[in-house]
Each structure stands twice: as structure tokens, then as C-alpha cells.
């Protein structure tokens, strides 16, 4: 083997970084919305690999679990159900492109300002601090979340809970003639009320039966 571990890591980083940027661009440029959603999944995956490279394994796996495993599944669901017609080039107006470019430029400037002035003191200037083997960033993350950041953490949890309840309340509607089943009613049915078993002698058919017709 000729390549050193450092070089190996660089190769991995640039490969997956290229995939991340490429799939992110594909999300907005492909015509088919299903492929758009699937490229977003690919983008999340590659981002997770990049996070693994900076030893944030818990965050990387959680990204896959939450965004790929849950959020994007629902996205894909909606996109498949909507049956969106493939966008044609003629439908894309020139004014949209201009507006989009303007927004993109504004965001780029904002990001550059942020990194140049606000965060310059906080960004690590040289190499990433590598932890020794056996270091668990799950434990570390848990300690930080439940001690230093306990109030923001709890407040975020309550906000999410409220959002869930609100979403369910918004989609719940009462309809006339809705034949919703009530499990407890179904279980507590008394068979005697529904079915009468009569004992009778076997009867012999009189006159024409079906068999004789044919």
C-alpha cells in the first residue's frame, strides 16, 4: 500500500463532498420530483459521511435516522401521491430565474459575512482535535444536553410536542356518515343479540331445485 492514512482520508472527504454538492444541485435541477426527493436522500447520506469524518458519529447516524428514515419517507409519500406532472422547460419563467439568483446571491453574502466577522473567533483555525480511542461522544453529548443546555433542550421538546398536537388537530375533521370503527364496541358485542341458532330437522327440497333445472 502506497497511500498514507491522511491521503486516504482526503480522498474520502473530497469524493463524498463532491457527491454532496452534486446531489444537492441535482435536487433542484432534475425534472422528475421523485428523483429530486431521492437525490435529497443521497445528499443527506453524503453529509452524514462527512460528519463521520470529523468524528461526530452520533450526529451522523441521527441525521440518517431522522431525516432519511423519517422525514424524507413522508416527503416521498406526498410526492408520489400528488402525481406532479414533469415540469417542461417552457413552464420555467425567466423572472423566476432572476429572483432565484438574487436570493441565492443574498444568502451567499450573508454566509460570507457570518463566517468572516461573527464566527472567525470561534472557527478552529488548524487541525481538528482528534479524541483518543474509546472516547464516547454519545456520553459527552448527553452530559452537555442535560446539564448545560437543559432548558433550551426541554423548551425545544415542548415546542415539538405542541407542533405534533397542532398538526393532528388541524387534520382532524368530523364528517357526516363517517363509519369509524370503535374497537371496544366491537369487542363487547354479545353474539346472542346478533345471531339466532335454531335447531331444525334436515329438509328435503320440494319441487324444482337448481340441480334439476340444468
Amino acid at each position, binding site marked *: 500500500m502506497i497511500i498514507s492514512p491522511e491521503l486516504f482520508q482526503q480522498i474520502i472527504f473530497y469524493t463524498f463532498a463532491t457527491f454532496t454538492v452534486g446531489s444537492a444541485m441535482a435536487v433542484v435541477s432534475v425534472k422528475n420530483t421523485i428523483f429530486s426527493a431521492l437525490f435529497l436522500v443521497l445528499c443527506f447520506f453524503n453529509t452524514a459521511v462527512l460528519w463521520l469524518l470529523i468524528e461526530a458519529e452520533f450526529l451522523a447516524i441521527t441525521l440518517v435516522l431522522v431525516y432519511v428514515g423519517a422525514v424524507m419517507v413522508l416527503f416521498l409519500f406526498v410526492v408520489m401521491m400528488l402525481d406532479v406532472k414533469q415540469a417542461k422547460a417552457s413552464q420555467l419563467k425567466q423572472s423566476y430565474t432572476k429572483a432565484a439568483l438574487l436570493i441565492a446571491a443574498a444568502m451567499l453574502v450573508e454566509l460570507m459575512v457570518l463566517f468572516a466577522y461573527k464566527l472567525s473567533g470561534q472557527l478552529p483555525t488548524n487541525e481538528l482535535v482528534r479524541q483518543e480511542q474509546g472516547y464516547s461522544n454519545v456520553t459527552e453529548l448527553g452530559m452537555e444536553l442535560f446539564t448545560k443546555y437543559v432548558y433550551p433542550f426541554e423548551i425545544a421538546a415542548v415546542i415539538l410536542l405542541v407542533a405534533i398536537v397542532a398538526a393532528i388537530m388541524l387534520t382532524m375533521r368530523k364528517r357526516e356518515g363517517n363509519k369509524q370503527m370503535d*374497537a371496544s364496541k366491537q369487542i363487547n358485542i354479545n353474539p346472542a343479540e346478533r345471531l339466532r341458532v335454531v335447531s331444525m330437522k334436515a329438509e328435503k327440497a320440494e319441487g324444482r331445485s337448481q340441480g334439476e333445472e340444468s
Partner: protein
Amino acid sequence: MIETLNFLIFDNLIYILAIVLGVILTVAYLTYFERKVIAFMHVRMGPNRVGPWGLLQPFADVVKLLTKEIIFPKNANKFLFLIAPIITLATAFAAWAVVPFADGMVLADINAGLVYILAMTSLGVYGVIIAGWASNSKYALLGALRSAAQIVSYEIAMGFALVGVLVAAGTLNLSDIVRAQEGGIVHWYMWPLLPLFVIYYISGVAETNRAPFDVAEGESEIVAGFHVEYSGAAFALFFLGEYANMIIISALTAIMFLGGWYSPVSGDSWIAQPSIFWFLAKTSIFLYAFFWLRATLPRFRYDQIMRLGWKVFIPITIAWIMVVAVLKVYNIGPWWN
């Protein structure tokens, strides 16, 4: 450093190959086992023509499936149609990376193992959704929607059951979870976490779309669900993925609730030695239970499945997490190490 890299690449490749081959062979004989078990429950003989006692039947089936033609439906998206079974299989195999077979016998002993397992099993739903959509068939799409809704619902109950294990063991590392259950059957988490244990296993059955939760492929209503348009090798991959998922659910139940590689008795005798055979035996019990359930119970109605997942399992798991937390903090019971 270069030796480390060599180790990382070549030794791991050998381990990966060993696990994949092992899982594939187990799947092959699991299908045989399933047919035999169900046959005996139906008072039939089961496969008994190919080889002694029908033991070569799985290979005959594989050869048959591989030599069949793969048919593409009209207007189907070929790329997605082909990638769907691959996704199903790949995620089913990827989850095996963190499964500890015995003490130290694990491919990747990562700290976030439990979260990794959840992430990988939740990815399996993509194969189903993409297969259903790419087939360009209404039965396939309906089956995919049913299956996806079911998997997403039961994942929540499953996740909460795992939170209980996490509270009890205090770690996300699967090997450490097993080590926390050392010392005989009393220390296994199936006792303090009994409701979670039952819920985890039932959710696992639901998540793999096996009977009695197999509305996703309800033959009487939607022909065969999401894989109705698949034939030959592509169908074989779905089949392989489903069985690999069953094995992993059984293995995880054994690891998290039945003490993995530890013997049920404690002491120094030969029977008390921890070994991979205990792990395999415990896994087999749950695999058998899969078939037992299939031969015993009729298929649930769709609304019954949803009600069970959302209104029964999730509240029970949330309540029991509180109970486990109290038991753990005040050290109540003989099961904590």
C-alpha cells in the same frame, strides 16, 4: 499507520464476507425450516423430495429463481425498478455490522450501535416505496403505501422500547448492553422490561411485514403488494431482504432482552460458559416464533394494525419507560448488576 489501513480494509472485508455468507446460508435454511414448521403444524410433510429430507430444497429454489426472466412492466422506471430490491437487501445486511455474536466477536463495536440499528432498519422502507412506485401498477403502489405506513408507525413503538433498554443499560453500545445482563437468567432485561420485550418483538414482526401483519402483501386484496411486478432474481433479493430482516429482529431481541451470548445459569460449570451458541439458540427461538405466529394467527385488519401500534403500544412503552427509570434509579429488584 499503514498496517492499520491494511487491517481496516482486508481483515474487515473477510469479516464482512463471513457475515454476509452466514446470513445468506441462514436465510436459505430458514425458508426450509419455515416450510417444515408450518407443514408440521398443518399435519403435512413439507418439502421432502430434493435431497435427503428435502434438505437441498432451498438450493433448488434459488436456482429456479435465478434462471427466471426478469420482466419489466410497461412504462416502469427501469433504474428505480432495479435499485429497489438492492436497497432492501443492502439495508438488511448493513444492520449486521454492529451485531455482537459473542464477546468481542463484532464487526464494528461502535458507541451509537442502537441508533445505527434503528437508522438502518428505518431505511428498509425505501426499497418498498420505490418498488411500489417504480412498478407502475396500482396494486404495487397500494401495497407500498400500506407497508410504508405500517413500518413508520411501528418504528415509533420500537424506538420507545429501545429507549427502555437504553435507560436500563445506560449505553448505546450493543456489546455493553449484553455485558450489563451478565449473571444468569435473573439479570436478563426481559424481566424488568417485560412489556417492552413483548412490544419490541411484536413491532419487529409488524416491521418485517410478516403474518399476521402482512396486509402489505394481502393476496386476497392487492394480489401480492409492492413486489407483485417482480420476478426472478429481483424477487429473490426482496425475499432475501425480508428473511435477513427477520433474523436481525430475532438477534436483536436476543441481545437486548435475553442477554445475548450469556448462559441462563450462572456459575463455573461447562453449561454456564458464555458462547456464541447461546446467542444462536436464543435467536432461533424468536425465528421459530415468527413461523409459529404465521401458522396460528389470521391476518389483522388494517385499522386493527394501526390501532394496536398507535393507541396500545406507544402509550404502554411511554409509561413503562417511567417505571424502568424509577426501578433503575432506586435499584429496585434483583436484576440490576
